């Protein structure tokens, strides 16, 4: 079964503050993700990799095309559905980025608990990803880039969403923690989740990546 299908996706930005300059970032993306698979997008900076993920989550509004989310419930077009329908659909699709996007004053474990996880499980998840126990109750405002990234990933993995969009989620991690993060992601895949991920260095974790697609100038090209 196809968990997420992208058809003819186009996205451009109009900079009204820059004299209406138009910049195309996606120029016709077609992509189908099989349930339980892991697809990696790679390519130079500015090639549109993150924009694909953001359109799928509707952080960016697509200009043309369809993004059909099928996993976990009724089909929803993330490109055209109403805002309240998108909010409901976001219970089935998660986006994790490399930057912390949460309240920086709330303790790390509490942030994970807010996703509906028990405190014990939250602690275990942070442990597994390599955040020292002394930091579990500390607020991420004081964390290093890598530690923040661990919190971000723990939040993304806390809920069992059928589709996960991962945008450079290991970019700031040291090799040991990167390994742990990739193991946790691979476990989620084994449990049936469908992954669309952006990585500069494609992970070599056994059984994780099913295919790698290359992006250039807003298009998918042969890998």
């Amino acid at each position, binding site marked *: 079964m196809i968990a997420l299908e992208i058809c003819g996706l186009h996205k451009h930005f109009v900079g009204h503050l820059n004299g209406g300059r138009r910049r195309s970032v996606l120029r016709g993306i077609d992509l189908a993700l099989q349930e339980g698979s892991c697809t990696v997008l790679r390519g130079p900076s500015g090639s549109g990799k993150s924009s694909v993920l953001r359109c799928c989550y509707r*952080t960016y509004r697509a200009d043309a095309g369809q993004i059909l989310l099928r996993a976990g419930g009724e089909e929803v077009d993330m490109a055209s559905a109403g*805002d309240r329908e998108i*909010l409901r659909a976001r219970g089935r699709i998660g986006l994790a980025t490399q930057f912390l996007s949460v309240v920086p*004053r709330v303790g790390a474990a509490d942030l994970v608990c807010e996703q509906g996880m028990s405190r014990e499980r939250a602690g275990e998840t942070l442990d597994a990803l390599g955040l020292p126990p002394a930091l579990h109750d500390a607020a991420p405002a004081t964390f290093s880039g890598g530690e923040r990234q661990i919190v971000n990933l723990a939040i993304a993995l806390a809920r069992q969403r059928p589709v996960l969009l991962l945008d450079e989620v290991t970019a700031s991690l040291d090799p040991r923690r990167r390994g742990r993060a990739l193991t946790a992601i691979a476990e989620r895949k084994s449990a049936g989740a469908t992954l669309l991920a952006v990585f500069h260095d494609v992970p070599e974790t056994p059984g994780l990546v099913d295919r790698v697609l290359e992006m250039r100038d807003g298009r998918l090209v042969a890998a």
Partner: protein
Amino acid sequence: MTALLEVDGLTVRYGPGCEHCDYLPAGEVSCATCGSVFGCRDVCLQLDRGEVLGIVGESGSGKSTVLSCLNLDFAPTAGRILLDGDDIAGADGSRRRRLRAADLGIVYQSPQQGLDLALSAGANVAGRLLALDWRSYEEVRSRALAHHISVELAEERIDDPARAFSGGMRQRVQLARALISTPKLLLLDEPTSGLDVSVQARILDLIRRIRRETELAMVIVSHDLAVIRMLAERVIVMRGGRVIEPGLTDQVLCDPQHPYTQLLVSSQLT
């Protein structure tokens, strides 16, 4: 399913109105022909239980006018406000008082607007219950005390006059007062403006906690996009009394479409 709150075509006009009013240029709020001024025009929004909607815009954009209409401070010139399917826009007299005491709670930017500073914190909080015909002193007192504590105010200060409280504490008293009748809708009008940043952060944390624990629907007006980003999953951007861009908060902030929204987002200091 019916939305908890459905606002349709909400318009507030000060002045007689004329046929030229329909053709005011974008961003213009006053009619050169008849002199009418529009507080807001054709505002539509929907809110479900447990949802938080943000309203942003510059001063004079109409955001507080919309909130005042929702709080039934005055009746709009046109439009409907459906709360649980009942049109409350034109409610007057006892129905209006009852709706305000039972179903609507509001926190104003200025505590003077929401509280009687000469009265004790407890009396301010309990006042809404008296409006709902609670008569037992013990019951009113114990419920007021429970809410006083729930907004993290010290128990022993419940009989202190509100004027003896700091700005942040007065906002907590306003929150306790708004929540004591378990309203359906909580309205927040710039609840943290003018507070120093550490106090602001704690008030925002309190509002987040209330939201998590009560699943209360909220409308929050703020000119601070960071506050909206933290509290609201949907937002409407207003200018010249009109909604110029509605959307998901993260989408409006990351991918603003309207020229004014782009200006607003790019002007934020972050």
